[in-house]
């Protein structure tokens, strides 16, 4: 159900790590829990983000929810398309619904994230936060 080539947080974000950069978004589980997403607030290119700290906000019709950075670093790309079409986060969370690309300042942090098997169990168990 969740892409195998991604790493996951307990708070239901993913990071796809490719050569020092991490493409990040929220997981299908988080998107499903939130329902129809109507607003996404993302940092500007160049902003610094810290692993475990909020980097943005997603809002569904009923709920407001922080998104937490899976890894630390500098934001080098932002998916501006979500401003006009936030519902893509529901329809394709792990693909076109990506949110930011982080240039990692401490690539070792990625090792602390969950693999797909651990995340699947975490989500199936109700997933705690988000």
């Amino acid at each position, binding site marked *: 159900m969740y892409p195998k080539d991604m790493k996951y947080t307990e708070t239901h974000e993913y990071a796809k790590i490719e050569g020092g950069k991490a493409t990040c978004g929220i997981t299908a589980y988080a998107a499903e829990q939130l*329902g129809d997403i*109507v*607003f996404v*607030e993302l940092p500007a290119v160049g902003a610094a983000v810290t692993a475990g700290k909020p980097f943005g906000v997603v809002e569904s*019709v*009923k709920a*407001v929810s922080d998104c937490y950075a899976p890894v630390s670093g500098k934001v080098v790309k932002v998916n501006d398309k979500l401003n006009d079409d936030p519902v893509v986060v529901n329809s394709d969370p792990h693909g076109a619904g990506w949110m930011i690309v982080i240039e990692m300042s401490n690539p070792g942090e990625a090792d602390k994230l969950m693999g797909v098997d651990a995340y699947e169990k975490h989500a199936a168990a109700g997933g705690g936060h988000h």
Partner: protein
Amino acid sequence: MDDLANLKKTPNYDMHVKYGGKVVDFGGWALSVQFAGILEEHRTVREKVGLFDVSHMGEATVKGPGALAFLQKMVSRDLSTMHDTQVYYTHLLYPTGGAVDDLMVTKLGDEDYYLVINASNTDKDVAWMKQYVGEFPGVELKNISADTAELALQGPLAEKTLQKLTSAKLSDLKYYHVIPQAKVAGIDTMISRTGYTGEDGFEIMCAPKDANNLWEAIMQAGQEFGIKPIGLGARDTLRFEAAMPLYGQEMDENTGPIEAGLQRFVSPEKPGYIGREATLKKVDEGVAKKLVGFEMVDRGVPRHNYKVKKNGKEIGYVTTGSYAPTLDKNVGMAYVPPTETAIGNEFDIEIRGRDLKARVVKLPFYKRKK
């Protein structure tokens, strides 16, 4: 989810399960916040037809000689002008002019009235009215909420859907009127042409034991029109676009219908009703705060209780705010000083520590084409 076992269940609870509702705790009731998804359900009601379980709403009857006199004391609107089968929207007020609740009163006969009150206020309202009913010998006030199931069928194709199930001529049923006794799919009901969505539609009362059969009959009849079950999420966005007030947000014990812009439903001069002096004072001298509609100019979604600010100073609060699906805009209703209510006036909404610009617009946000 394990907490759901302790919640009150409506007579249609099995339908929530069968139709895949996402059941939540709604003021102690197990009800679906959504079925297919809030946006899709919202569109379904605006364009086609949707079915709601609203059995959590409270119902009460007021019967006997003196029923009218009793209700004239309890509510702020003059009910003496009602004719049989007519429905009025009105308010129970405190002596301060704040609202105990808003409600629908149906006149079934000179000594026979039917009230629909808010779910979360049912016990409070009945206790409030019981304090006064003794002053009117012969009047019997009865809480019949537990013996009443209520479904709402709303949307431009609601009449076509319901007409398939009843011989009652629905095209003759005017808005804010009822057919007190009608068979729908062979079930005894009362049909009321009212709703909480801004669309045409019906609210249908029946005995709890018949509620699931009625639900299934309506779902089947509406299939060719694209009917869908609708949850509480879309119920809120639909009523919000139509600027219909929600008790606890647009009104509360300190905030009455005059502040909320509902004066057309109030008869301030009517003698003897509770809250008269305070209401007259508000009408004559003005109110400290007034409800306005606004749309966001900057990017952001306003929410209940966010601060309204002007030049950094707090001047009011958001009562309801949301993405409005039909408008595709982020809009809200807010209480602000009367000096800030002109259409086009700008103020800020504080969203996550930032003051974001908003502009006053006309209410309602959405009005259906007749």
